[in-house]
Structures are given as structure tokens and as C-alpha cells.
């Protein structure tokens, strides 16, 4: 593990990104972009540790921001770890084989948001829509004729009984 990385993250508030093996540059960049858009500085380094979870947890403990990101070519895994979480339970993990670049950028952004204390991003939440829901306008319903017929009949029947 690079000595320089340890020194840097102990001195300055930076999110360390640990790389094990040859991780695709597009994946690393996506992580970096996620952090950059959120305005949190980061620094990359390498590790030879077999378990990316353990390595990332260790680096998170050394980081002044208490957070670390790790990407492993061997395990095909990207994790976001926090100092206080159990080693084998990183906050988020994405498989390099199945996740896409947007997932990695989101993981990077979440690293930054964890530092800032902002709500995290999730795949299923439309985070591009933080505004309140629009006022509900009455939309004309697509109803089938039979249903209308039935309702009309029902109303007529009730009107008839009322008299």
C-alpha cells in the first residue's frame, strides 16, 4: 500500500480510493467524477490486500473523513466503507460485472454525501426530482364503455328507488 496515500489522507480531508489489480479506468473515473461533482477531494492509491472490504475499512479508519472507497479487479467489486461499520458490511457494494458507470458515479457521489451529511442517492429514487409532487390535476380516465354503462345503470336504479 502506498505510504504516500496514508500520509496524504491523514493530513488533508480527502476520500481515499484504493485500487487492487487492474481496474478499468472508466470505473475509476466514474467514482472520481461522482466525488468531484459533489465537491469533495479524493486521492487514489493501490493495495495488494486480498480482501477489498478489509483494505477499504482500514483506509477508512486512517482517513480524516472516516470514509474509504475500494475497487478490486480480482473480486470484481467496488465498495464504499465507513470507519465504524463492520469489516464485512460496507455501506454500499457494486459488482463490476453487473453495475454500470452510473452506479459507480452514484457510489462516488454517496461517498461525498456521507462526508457532507447530505441524503444519499439510490437507484430507485428519482433524485433529479427533489421538488414536491405537482398538484394533482384531474386527468380524463381511460374507461371502457361497459364500465360506464354499468355505472349509468346503477345510478338510474338508485334514482328510481329514491322516488
Amino acid at each position, binding site marked *: 500500500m502506498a505510504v504516500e496515500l496514508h500520509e496524504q489522507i491523514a493530513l488533508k480531508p480527502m476520500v481515499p480510493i484504493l485500487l487492487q489489480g487492474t481496474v478499468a479506468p472508466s470505473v475509476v473515473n466514474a467514482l472520481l*467524477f461522482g466525488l468531484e461533482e459533489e465537491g469533495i477531494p479524493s486521492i487514489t492509491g493501490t493495495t495488494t490486500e486480498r480482501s477489498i472490504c478489509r483494505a477499504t475499512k482500514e483506509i477508512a479508519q486512517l482517513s480524516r473523513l472516516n470514509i474509504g472507497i475500494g475497487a478490486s479487479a480480482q473480486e470484481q467489486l467496488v465498495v464504499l466503507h*465507513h470507519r465504524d461499520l463492520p469489516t464485512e458490511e460496507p*455501506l454500499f457494494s457494486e459488482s463490476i460485472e453487473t453495475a454500470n458507470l452510473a452506479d459507480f458515479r452514484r457510489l462516488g457521489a454517496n461517498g461525498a454525501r456521507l462526508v457532507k*451529511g447530505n441524503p*444519499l442517492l439510490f437507484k430507485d*429514487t428519482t433524485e433529479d426530482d*427533489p*421538488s*414536491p409532487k405537482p*398538484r394533482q390535476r384531474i386527468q380524463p380516465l381511460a374507461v371502457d364503455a361497459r364500465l360506464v354503462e354499468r355505472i349509468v345503470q346503477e345510478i338510474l336504479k338508485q334514482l328510481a328507488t329514491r322516488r
Partner: protein
Amino acid sequence: MALIAGVDIGNNTTEVALAEIDGQGAVRFCGQSLVRTIGIKGTMRNVSGIIDALNQALAPLKIPRRDLAMVLLNEATPVIGDVAMETITETVITESAMIGHNPTTPGGMGLATGTTINLDALSEADSAQDFIVLVDAATDFQVAAEMINAATARGVRVRGAIVQLDDGVLIHNRLSQPIPIVDEVRHIERVPMRMPAAIEVAPVGKTIEKLSNPYDIATLFGLSPEETRNIVPIARALTGVRSAVVIKTPQGDIQERRIPAGHLTLIGAEATVEVPVDQGAAAIMDKVDQVAPLREIKAEAGTNVGGMFETVRQVMADLTNQPVSDILVQDIIAVDTLVPQQVLGNLAGEFALGNAVGLAAMVQTQKLPMQMLARKLEEEIQVKVAVSGVEAEMAINGALTTPGTKAPLAILDLGGGSTDASLINEAGQIRSIHLAGAGDMVTMLIDKELGLDDLDLAERIKFYPLAKVETLFHLRHEDGSVQFFDAPMDPRLFGRVVVMGEGGPQPIPLEDTLGRIAEVRRKAKEKVFVQNGLRALSRVAPAGNIRLIEFVALVGGSSLDFEIPTMLADELMEYGVVTGRANIRGSQGPRNAVATGLVLTSPLAREQSYGR
């Protein structure tokens, strides 16, 4: 010695009080219970809830149900309330004239003006002009930055950028010359090209200063006094945002439009008045006071309020087997509020606060079919069941068991659908009133003002305090105290304002601060309960003067709220009234008043024998 049970069937809960009454008529209470009411109150479906409540009260005493000498039901007051809201203004943009929103991370900062241009057209742009460039979602931020840099190098003056994706900071960091960038503009395709535009991004923690001021906009675009007048809604809509764009289009306009919300017709004993709903709550309530005592209120068909009136009358008609035409809306309460609405024709999901009026209505009829319910219950449990006593009288008799009270005592029953007040004077005479608007209205106000569109969540926000999740392991409560957890919280809670319900913290999916959510909650409670508390008490008070009441005891579900009793006590302190949550029999809190009253006023009990 006779064992009797008083049963109070409320809209939400069914309560039982058990007591032994000896030969001299002395009452000794020995048990109680509380269950959810099953079905609408006064209907046959209530029976299973009553049986359940009786069983629960009897269980600790190990007494079988058949040993009961008598079950007393209250003559439940047939009051139903409901709530609705009319939005009376909305903001409409014609010809996309502005963008104003709060992306979490815009790029750069400052103010710039220029002509809107597509990124692709930048290569042919001339250098004599200032430009605001548009970057759509199809363009990678690195490519965009390169193209802007290349144009800048050729002498084209790119002064600002409007970006569709969340790439503002990334583009900004790659530019040779810093410019303000507004990002996350969802409908970028609606931005008109080749039009003069101004862009402003505020520094972190601040809001824009220039584009929210009509004279600054006039300065930037060289507007005439007449045009400046027209720009005011834009400036207003842009107040308080972090980043904004204003575009000057030939027909571009933004308007605050009034939505017709119909009239209310208030029919009093002596006069009939019409009041337009869009004049707001103050005007409506003024007229209500003017016309009082009200006989009936009518709302225009086709409006939200009109629809609500119909529903509530229909429910009551079904419940009591009366024709709808016999059921009248007898009281309303109106409250002004502001609701966030998406701006029509918006570019980035902007919203503006629209004015709205919240209304609660109340219908009351003569009698619920309680005798039928009593016969059914008697059949089921083989114990004598009687309907005795009017709800308001029973409640006040129960409330008088609160230590430290005496007549003249008023009770305020803060329920879900209605706020009720009763007063007993030294002579033992009781007066009571039912008014529209209570807990359900507070829930609606919270839901609408926060734009939640989730009544369950609004209900929880009303009932439980808030907290902010600050790290994965701790949260800070509304009062500033900090709570730590051994295990990490759900990451979905992180950084969020949460409501501390029984099932643990639940996230509120809003960007609003804890302070604002708490403010909305408090204001909603004040608007409804303080106004209604005063309204109700002055109707039952001698000569309409609240100062002549000595004691006010709060009962009903909403009196269990963690802040409503304090709000009312603060308000009533000015009238020199002792106000507090009732403590029925010195042990039950604000619960069980009616059930207790039923037992105390039963024929077997000697009057005033509860030994205070």
C-alpha cells in the same frame, strides 16, 4: 353490590369503565379498557369492538361477562366532519421565461448575461457577442468543457451555461475561464434559442440577489417601467433559490393566476350571505361570525369543497337512514395556507407557493340508531344494555373527577373530526357545542403545506417529534438532544429529517429543513386548535365571555398531542382560565371521561358519590 360497565363509542376508540356500586349507591371503579372502534360509530359493526373492550376490562378481575349487572351506552352525538382544500392561485409561465431552482451542486458562481445558444452552434458563433450556452444530456461533460474552452480560445465570449444533467461542477472544473453554471435543468429543450438571458449562481449557503430583484432584472435587460412591472412575478418566484436563469422572450411571461374556487352560502337565523372562497379564510370566518348562529352552509357544486360537503352529508345520511336533503352542513372553519405547486410550463421542476384555503365542515343530526345497537349488543352478551345520557353531559361528569376542578368547568374535546366544548355551571346546567375542524384538518394542512401527498406520513408528522440523522450511528432530536445507536441505521435515513414513530425513525422525503417541517406542524395545530378552542369556549361561556369560565379540562384524542395542550394553555392564560389536560378519576389522563360519566350518572349510583 352491582357491577356495571359504561361504554363510550367514539369515532376512533371505544372505551369502557367498570365499577362496583353498593347498596348505598357508592361507586368504586375497578377497571377500564380502550380499543379501536370497529365501523362507523352508531352502526351494528361496533358490537364486536364493544365486546372486545368489555372482555379486556374484565380480564384482570377474572370476572365472567355474565356477572355484569348492566352495560350503559352513551347517546353518541352524531357529528361527522371532513376536510378539503381549494387552491386559489397558481403560477403559470408562458414561453419559458425563467428557470429558478436549487440543484445541490451548481457550478461556479456569479452573475452573467448573454444570448442563449446551443453548444453545437458555438463553433460558428461570432466573437462580438456574449453567450449563455446550453448543454443537453446527450453531451458528455468532458466534451462540453472542451468545446467551451475551444470557443473561449477563439475569442467567443461564453459567459454562462445551462446544463441538463448534474454536471455543473464537473464542467466548471474543466474550464479555462470560470463561469456560472445552472445544472439539473430537466426540460432544457424548452429553453428558447438566440434570446437574451441572465444567469446567476449564488455561493454556498446563500441565495441569489440580482435576479430576485425587479430593478436588477430591469437593469440587466434595459426594461421600461411598464416591463418592470410585468417582471415582478418572476422576481418573486426566484426569491430564495440558489441558482436562476431569466430569459427575455418577446411574449415571455409569468403570471400568478387566480383559480375560481366558487362561493360558500352561509345561511343564518336572520341573514344569508355569500362569500367567495378565494377571498381567503379571514373573510370567510368574518362572515361566519356575522351570520352566527348558522343554520346551514352550502358550497358550489364542482369545487373541492362542494364535493366534500356532498360526501360528508351522504355518509351521515347512510348512517342514520335519513334522506340526504335532511342533512345540513352546520359549521365550517377556514384556514389560510400556502401550498407548493409545480409551476405550469416549468423548465427544471420549479415550484411556487400558491395560496390555498383549507376548510373543514361538520354535520350533525338528531340521533344515531343507538337503541338498535343496544338491542343487538344485549342479544350477543345476554346482559342488560341501556342507552343513557347525552355524550357531552357524560363527558363533563367524567371530567369533574379530575382532581382540582369544580364547576363552572368547561371541557374542550379535541377530536379528529370536530372540536366540542361543554360547560357546566354551579347549578349543574350543561351547555355544549360542536364545531368543525380538529385533528384531521391539522393532518391535511401538514400534508398540503409540505406537498407530501401522503396522509399517513402527515399523520405521523403531526403526532411524533422530528429528528435529523446526522451520521450512520446517531441522530439529533428536535430539542437538540443526541441519540446514539449500536448498529448503523438504514442508509436511506442518512442526512434526512425523520419522524420518530413507534416503529423507529421514518424518513421524510423532503429537502426542507427540520426547522421548517416543525414550523409547518406547529402552525397547522395553532391555526386549527387555538382558533377552534376560542371559538368553542366563547359559544358555551356565560355571556360569551371566556373570562367567566374558571377551569378548562382538555379531553379527546388530540389532547394527548405533545404540544397542542400547551398551545391552548398559553392562549387561555390571557383569559385567566386554568387549562390543562384532564386526569379522569385522578388516574386515566384525558381518556375515559364519557365512560366514567356514564357509570357515575347511572340510576344505581348515588349522585356525587365518587367521593372527592
